[in-house]
């Protein structure tokens, strides 16, 4: 019965034959676990589509109501918290997996002839994934999201000539307001996923058309004249059907990804909602989600005179280089002949990790919550020193300077300051300030300044 139905369906549509061809298309036998990250990225994307649709049935994309609808989803709706967790960790998984996939393809030079467009469509998918990650973070419409929109608009505003217009486009007006969120919602749930579907279709079509790249072999460079024939010969000699000979690994790994995401969604749960999206609440400490934390650090650590160049040019150059990778589309694929490929990947991972750790510590942010120094830390009990230690906290010195680990990291640690500065030098620094320190000449009466110096003079 089912067989007859399928036969009828295939006769009228051809989809059964097509699906079998697609599933059982021949692939090189030697593909291994390094080949699972593309399909895993796709599985993560489908997870996002399914959980996203479910969340969209309860989410209210209006600037005034989104926050409350998120609280409803998280606190009251059946399985709402779990779904939000799935969507959040699914997004994280997608970012990580597409990153590994790109790195794998780059190191194995699978982008070479004839698969240049596989790379280009994949590179566009990487950029779209980041755009989805950013817009998705904004839909968690709390205080941090509001300030993230403003920070994004401020960055776009640095662009010469069109900066102001771009910023208005992002905010959808003069300020954050009723029009802002619904646009990000439409981009996040319709426009960007639509583009992803189109490009995934193209990407998979190209994978079928050119076949999965064989693992690189030293001394077997890609030559346009012979490659296609050589690949066809390889499949004839040693090809196996994708399903199930190669696909089982994709299934095992993909199921593992979904399980880990589900586990994290249960154990850790979705990111907490911050304060309401009220731009007039100034007790704000905006931080991007983890996948952009490193960029937050880049923005903080870039020297001021390079800032606009870094904000505007760096993403453009990165995008251009990414898309132009397959210009070098022939020659050796083996990483042993292209050691720089491995170096580039390691360097990027290292740089992002370094900035990420810096972003986690955020030493450039003043610590507004620094507590007054305890008597045990102050040690000395003379009036001047005790007064100075209190002023050190009250006047905000401690926002930026730490004593024995307590206080901000914006400025130098002053635990042992007296061993490198004389009291006179301290007076000069406090009075006149420094490159990243405001001058306190008009902010501190002389006796208060002297008390602070008396306290600091004991720090050796």
């Amino acid at each position, binding site marked *: 019965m089912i067989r007859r139905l399928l036969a009828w369906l295939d006769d009228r549509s051809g989809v059964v034959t*097509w699906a079998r*061809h*697609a599933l*059982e*298309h021949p692939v090189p036998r030697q593909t291994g676990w390094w080949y699972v990250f593309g399909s895993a990225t796709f599985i993560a994307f489908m997870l996002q589509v399914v959980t996203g649709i479910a969340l969209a049935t309860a989410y209210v994309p*209006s*600037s*005034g109501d989104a*926050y409350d609808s998120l609280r409803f989803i998280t606190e009251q709706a059946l399985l709402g918290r779990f779904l939000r967790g799935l969507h959040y960790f699914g997004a994280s998984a997608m970012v990580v997996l597409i990153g590994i996939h790109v790195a794998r393809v780059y190191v194995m030079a699978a982008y070479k002839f004839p698969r240049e467009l596989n790379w280009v469509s994949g590179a566009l998918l990487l950029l779209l994934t980041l755009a989805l990650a950013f817009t998705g973070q904004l839909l968690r419409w709390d205080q941090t999201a509001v300030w993230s929109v*403003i*920070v994004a*608009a*401020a*960055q776009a*505003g640095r662009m010469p000539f069109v*900066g102001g217009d771009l*910023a*208005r*486009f992002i*905010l959808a*007006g*003069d*300020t954050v*307001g009723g029009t802002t*969120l619904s646009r990000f919602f439409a981009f996040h749930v319709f426009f960007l996923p639509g583009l992803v579907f189109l490009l995934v279709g193209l990407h998979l079509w190209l994978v*079928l*058309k*050119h*076949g999965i790249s064989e693992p690189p072999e030293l001394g077997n460079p890609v030559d346009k004249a012979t490659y296609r024939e050589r690949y066809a010969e390889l*499949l*004839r000699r040693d*090809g196996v*059907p994708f399903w199930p000979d190669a696909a089982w690994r994709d299934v095992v790994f993909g199921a593992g990804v979904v399980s880990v995401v589900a586990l994290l969604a249960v154990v850790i749960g979705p990111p907490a909602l911050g304060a*309401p*999206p*009220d*731009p*007039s*609440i*100034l*007790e704000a*400490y*905006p931080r991007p989600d983890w996948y952009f934390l490193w960029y937050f650090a880049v923005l*903080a650590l870039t020297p*001021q005179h390079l*800032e606009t160049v870094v904000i505007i040019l760096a993403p453009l150059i990165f995008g251009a280089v990414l898309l132009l990778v397959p210009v070098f589309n022939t020659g050796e694929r083996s990483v042993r002949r292209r050691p720089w490929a491995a170096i580039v990947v390691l360097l990027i991972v290292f740089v992002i990790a370094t900035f990420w750790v810096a972003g986690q510590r955020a030493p*450039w942010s*003043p610590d507004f919550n620094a507590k007054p120094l305890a008597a045990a830390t102050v040690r000395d009990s003379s009036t001047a020193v005790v007064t100075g230690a209190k002023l050190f906290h009250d*006047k*905000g010195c401690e*926002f*930026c300077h730490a004593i024995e680990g307590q206080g901000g990291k914006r400025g130098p640690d002053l635990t042992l300051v007296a061993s490198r500065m004389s009291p006179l030098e301290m007076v000069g620094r406090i009075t006149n300030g420094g490159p*990243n*320190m*405001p*001058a*306190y000449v*008009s*902010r*501190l009466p002389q006796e208060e300044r002297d008390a602070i110096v008396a306290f600091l003079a004991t720090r050796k």
Partner: protein
Amino acid sequence: MLGRMDRPPTTQQDLPPPVPAPDDPQLLHRRRFLSRVSIALSTLAAALVGVPVVGFLISPLTRRSPRQWRAVGPVDHFKVGETVSVTFEDASPLPWSGVSARTAAWLRRDSDSAFTAFSVNCTHLGCPVRWFAESKLFLCPCHGGVYNADGSVAAGPPPKPLGRYPARVRAGQVEILTSPIPIA
């Protein structure tokens, strides 16, 4: 299983081959004409839909909210020399804007009748600065920008002084003129 393992399957195999070009110049001409008309009509139809859609999407670029004076409190609520945060509604909040239509400013009473209103947006990347009265500084929580009491940069990455809103006193009320977020 399927036999021809050597050839990647493509759907093109299922399509009949294209009809060869005719020898008859008149027929050739007619086909060329028909394809041009079809392309032109499709373009027209696409433009009829596409232009309004794009125009709708970029409308924030041309739409300027009218600026409005908003009362933020009676004059006697503010002490001379003090800097406090005040909250007011944006120029034309939409009914569904909720709390997102609110904006804050740092307001200082300079004298009996003169007020200065500072934008809360750091000129570095727009984060909300806080007034720290003890040291008379505005401090930014994001990247550590610091401003003096007059809004000039004291330290850190901000490239420009803090922006200001026009402020005035009318009928015993301090009023602030709503303004776009100061960017670029």
